């Protein structure tokens, strides 16, 4: 961890340690600095320190994918015609020559077949859209599982969630632009979702589509959303997200020398920038390879959108998959009152359930904060096992998501595994309620088990794998103490406190206001934390140390696997002796 920082900057004072006589570039920089004060700002930020861990780079995948989306998307705008007016295709894709189609679709074919590099750009754009949202998901999961959302980063958590929602919306808008059979089918579903809104549904749909579906205004409208409005919002929010990141500084894993007050890692320049820059090229490379080698959204095969057509295998991009799954397994419930139909069969899966699920994940940090009443700042991350309830909740949500995903692809499952569509539907209807709780329970117990194992390591050392036979024939495994650093890392966490209701009556013997909420809070607190295993106390640790020293009088403090000679007379013998095991 000892990085020689003298090469990067050697002064903290107001004047930069630069050459005495500035050259031409220096003069320009100086001129700019006098007016913008950039040097001071930059010096501070260029020496910003970033900790190193693979999971801290997941957000970067999303960031770089967004950059790729901007680049490839701009290329596409040069040829794309966002119009639904109809013309007869005369381009070079012979299978559709002479077919009437919208200009949007025709221009997508044009990009694919007649623009040099156009198909590559389209495919890269689409793959990076899929990667962008997937990366946001895994990034969010990492933030969630490590408790990185805790104070002071709550706002950034909300910004991140908004980015995710906007990203999905942006993706859906883009998916709808080429006006092929699948995008039209997707829009038809969107139309259905809108129309399922009680009372105002039809009006909203007519307003959006400029009349009866499909109308002829939607694609120009979506285009503005897709290339201007949402990217603008995304850009602004990403900016805010990054600013807050720099402002709060990055979180880090606990370890020796890492506290709530510092950040241990590499400075922005040169190490981190080089790494991040390199990572951009990696992301770009993977996207380019996928765009070049793997077909995505082959719109020419789908054909132009025609409301009278549909195809087997109609699915949205993966990030809309759970909405599709919900729709597919929903029983056909409707209520008729006063000549109106309330379509529960569309409203619940389309308008309520996805947002409910999403809201639960977004809301969890706030629930947790309320329950713990923890208002301290946290810059050290938690290992997922040390927040068993939270980790289990995420595991359950991921399971739910996966099940709904599978339900959205039920036809593909049916044909590829020779299952019955009907059975899949019945199975899923039950599974989405039954399986996540089971996963929740198992994950929670698993985490608690891991916590126990950690405590054992701290107290009794690690298992060496060395089996000893005692003179009276009994076998036992030897343990060796772990190093100070590991012990520190394992115990560098706070104890969970369980909230209790002080007293439910005030001094006059009247039920105090807010008692009900307090009781709920206490119950939740107990449910969330009571079963957790707390780290050993200092006395326990002392006692264990003492005990260990007493048994084998070894103070090796090994973190690597034991060589196997800790308990024999190997060290006493000649070096020429054949070692028992290589190490």
């Amino acid at each position, binding site marked *: 961890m000892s990085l020689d920082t003298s090469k990067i900057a050697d002064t903290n004072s107001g004047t930069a340690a630069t050459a005495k006589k500035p050259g031409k570039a220096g003069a320009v920089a100086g001129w700019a600095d006098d007016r913008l004060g950039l040097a001071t700002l930059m010096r501070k930020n260029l020496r910003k320190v970033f900790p190193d861990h693979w999971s801290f780079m997941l957000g970067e995948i999303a960031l770089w994918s967004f950059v790729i989306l901007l680049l490839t998307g701009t290329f596409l705008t040069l040829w794309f015609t966002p119009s639904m007016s109809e013309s007869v295709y005369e381009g070079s894709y012979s299978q559709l*020559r002479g077919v009437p189609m919208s200009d949007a679709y025709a221009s997508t074919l044009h990009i694919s077949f007649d623009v040099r590099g156009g198909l590559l750009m389209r495919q890269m754009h689409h793959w990076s859209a899929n990667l962008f949202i997937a990366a946001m998901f895994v990034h969010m999961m990492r933030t969630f599982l490590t408790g990185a959302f805790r104070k002071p980063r709550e706002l950034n958590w909300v910004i991140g969630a908004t980015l995710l929602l906007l990203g999905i919306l942006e993706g859906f808008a883009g998916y709808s632009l080429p006006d092929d059979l699948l995008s039209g089918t997707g829009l038809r579903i969107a139309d259905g979702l809108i129309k399922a809104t009680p009372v105002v549904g039809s009006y909203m749909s007519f307003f959006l589509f400029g009349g009866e579906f499909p109308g002829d205004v939607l694609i120009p409208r979506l285009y503005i959303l897709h290339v201007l409005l949402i990217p603008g919002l995304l850009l602004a929010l990403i900016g805010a997200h990054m600013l807050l990141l720099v402002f709060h500084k990055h979180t880090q894993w606990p370890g020796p020398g890492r506290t709530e007050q510092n950040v241990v890692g*590499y400075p922005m320049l040169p190490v981190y920038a080089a790494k991040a820059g390199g990572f951009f090229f990696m992301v770009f490379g993977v996207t380019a390879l996928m765009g070049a080698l793997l*077909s995505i959204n082959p719109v020419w095969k789908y054909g132009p959108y025609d409301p009278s057509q549909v195809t087997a295998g109609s699915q949205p991009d993966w990030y809309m998959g759970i909405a599709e799954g919900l729709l597919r397994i929903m029983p056909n419930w409707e209520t008729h009152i006063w000549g109106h139909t309330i379509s529960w069969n569309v409203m619940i899966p389309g308008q309520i359930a996805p947002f409910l699920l999403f809201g639960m994940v977004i809301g969890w940090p706030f629930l947790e904060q309320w329950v713990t009443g923890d208002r301290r700042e946290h810059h050290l991350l938690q290992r997922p096992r040390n927040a068993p309830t939270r980790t289990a909740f995420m595991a359950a949500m991921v399971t739910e998501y996966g099940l709904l995903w599978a339900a959205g692809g039920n036809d593909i499952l049916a044909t590829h595994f020779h299952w*019955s569509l009907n059975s899949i539907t019945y199975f899923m209807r039950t599974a989405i309620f039954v399986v996540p709780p089971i996963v929740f329970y198992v994950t929670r117990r698993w985490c608690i088990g891991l916590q126990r194992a950690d405590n054992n390591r701290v107290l009794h050392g690690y298992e060496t794998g060395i089996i000893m036979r005692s003179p009276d024939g009994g076998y036992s495994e030897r343990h060796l103490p772990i190093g100070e650093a590991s012990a520190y890392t394992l115990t560098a966490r706070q104890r969970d406190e369980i909230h209790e209701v002080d007293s439910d009556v005030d001094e006059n013997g009247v039920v105090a206001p807010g008692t009900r909420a307090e009781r709920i809070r206490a119950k939740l607190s107990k449910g969330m934390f009571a079963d957790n295993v707390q780290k050993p106390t200092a006395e326990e640790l002392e006692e264990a140390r003492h005990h260990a020293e007493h048994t084998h009088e070894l103070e090796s403090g090994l973190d690597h696997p034991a060589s196997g000679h800790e308990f024999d007379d190997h060290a006493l013998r000649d070096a020429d002796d054949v070692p028992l095991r290589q190490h």
Partner: protein
Amino acid sequence: MRLLNRPLGRLSRYRRGPLAGLLVVLLGLLLTGGLYAAFSPASASEDNSAAQIKQGHQLFLVGCSFCHGNNGQGVKTLDGNQLGPALVGVGAAAVDFQVGTGRMPAVKPGPQVPQKEQAYTPDEIAALAAYVASLGPGPAIPTASDYSIDHMTDEQRQEAIVRGGAIFRTNCSACHNFEGSGGAMPNGGFAPKIRGVEPKYIFEAMLTGPQAMDNFSNGNLSVEEKQDIIAYLQSLQDNPDYGGFGLGGIGPVSEGVFAWLLGIGSLVGVATWIAAHTARSSKQKAES
């Protein structure tokens, strides 16, 4: 009017006689039967010699009657399910399709009879077909002039492909998928992949509508339109995958799988590598 009315009037006196109803029904039946025989695409008898029909019946009794009945009348199980449907009127084309693609003779009941190796020689199939055709009029086996697209010039073929694509997307892709990759049907059934099926069987499938598939008679989709579809399916087969590896031609599901497993998978791998790389070198530095 009068002239005409008189005999009719006389006839109408017997209108309510006991035999009149029967007579009318008989007349009607004769008429429709005759008309049907005259206009139906399949004139069952003629070229099918009696011997062939007899041979077919023998084969049928051995291989098919267990499920379809000794006279092709169909067999019901005790609980009311159909072991095999009645084959009266399904026509020679249905037999040629079912036996030719190896679906029949079915081996065991199930949601859908799978395809197997052909169990009969072409001659035997022809005999079976002749026999089933003799049970009642139905579509005859199409000839090469019906389903072959070899006679088309390149230009005609191009036009046929374009028309065929439109017909295919309107009538077939709902079950068979945009690329003919197949799709799921309720209760464990499925519409099979139809890229690469022989033109004759494509034609017969449309003509006879096997299982859950609709029947596209020649009045519904003309012979030319069927040829257009065949030309289109052929072109799907011939086309290169412009975008690269096609991921099975089943739409966005496989794209999502690749985005996660390949895309996110490899990028997380890269991230781990980048993060681990410096950590390792710095550790060595720190130790040395």
